[in-house]
């Protein structure tokens, strides 16, 4: 499969020394042409070294900024270097690199600004996850679908491909903490188009999800409040090429 565009894979990783090497390797195997940037979000372990050893570029943040800040740093890099497409892949290995071409194809063929890999569309394979998570995701899905004005089944998925317009928006403005659902609201408020692609996801290689049971309720309330507040915020204007935030 051939893409005549500059493609960039963005892997945020925080204390993922066990998985990040495999993720980088997986992406390289499936897409040998793309550039890979691992954003090391102030890890205390060997995440940075392991990623570098597999030949990825590594952006070392001086301290932990949280997933939102790390992701935005990656988008800033993509913006500055003039990449046409940025693909987000989690550093924990739950996203399967062989599904990336599906996202790229959708982005290209359907003229979307962002393509989201979803675990829960009608054609997705069965994905095992806890009851709590399912309830949370379906609640988000309803709320986000309502705000965005289109059906989205997996708004918490961090497996996404963004085109140049979305990259430029995210470089300027990206939500903090648990940013995936909020980012969609941001996109739709700036008038960008998005859509979902059915993908299968692996169980995590190592470690716990960043959302444990106790934190789940706090997370849900926080994100819902953040989304509610977002609806009243000033819209981020889309910039011309070369214009600063």
């Amino acid at each position, binding site marked *: 499969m051939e893409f005549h565009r500059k493609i960039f894979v963005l892997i945020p990783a925080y204390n993922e020394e066990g998985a990040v090497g495999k993720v980088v390797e997986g992406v390289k195997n499936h897409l040998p042409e793309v550039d890979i940037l691992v954003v090391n979000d102030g890890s205390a372990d060997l995440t940075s070294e392991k990623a570098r050893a597999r030949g990825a*570029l590594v*952006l070392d943040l*001086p301290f932990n*900024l949280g997933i939102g800040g790390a992701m*935005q*740093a990656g988008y800033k*890099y993509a913006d500055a270097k003039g990449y046409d497409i940025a693909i987000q892949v989690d550093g924990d290995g739950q996203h399967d690199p062989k599904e990336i071409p599906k996202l790229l194809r959708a982005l290209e063929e359907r003229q979307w600004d962002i393509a989201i890999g979803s675990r829960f569309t009608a054609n997705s394979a069965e994905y095992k996850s806890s009851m709590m998570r399912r309830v949370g995701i379906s609640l988000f899905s309803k709320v986000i679908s309502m705000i965005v004005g289109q059906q989205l089944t997996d708004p918490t998925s961090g497996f996404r491909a963004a085109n140049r317009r979305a990259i430029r928006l995210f470089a300027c403005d990206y939500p903090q903490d648990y940013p995936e659902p909020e980012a969609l609201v941001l996109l739709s408020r700036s008038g960008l188009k998005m859509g979902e692609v059915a993908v299968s996801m692996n169980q995590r290689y190592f470690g716990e999800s960043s959302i444990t049971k106790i934190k789940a309720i706090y997370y849900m309330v926080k994100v819902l409040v953040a989304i509610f507040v977002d609806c009243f915020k000033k819209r981020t204007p889309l910039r011309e090429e070369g214009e600063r935030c």
Partner: protein
Amino acid sequence: MLIQIQIVIGTLSVILLLITFELIRKERLREEYSILWLFTGIAIFIFSLWPEFFLSQFFTRITGLSYLSAVVMITFLFLLMIVLHFSVVISKLTDRNKELAQRHALLELEFNEFKKHCYLQESQ
């Protein structure tokens, strides 16, 4: 009874004002953050000087507060404003901190790539 309250409140406000001035003078408190503290001190001081207004029928009728409660209430409002102000300041600092960390990391990466590039050219 009233004069005692006046003395206590007056002394407290004067101490608060003196501490604030001293901190500004030693440049341990920036002027922009000291304004609310100065206002708080001055407001409490005024209370202690002119208690008649806060004891008047008019004031008691519209607020339902006695003198001491009024002082506490107004002080509390100022403290609320100060805390809110701090939250705004902290939010701004957090944003700038994030921005700096990101730029620092991006520059470092750029610099390291540049160094590697130079090194490769030299060794050729």
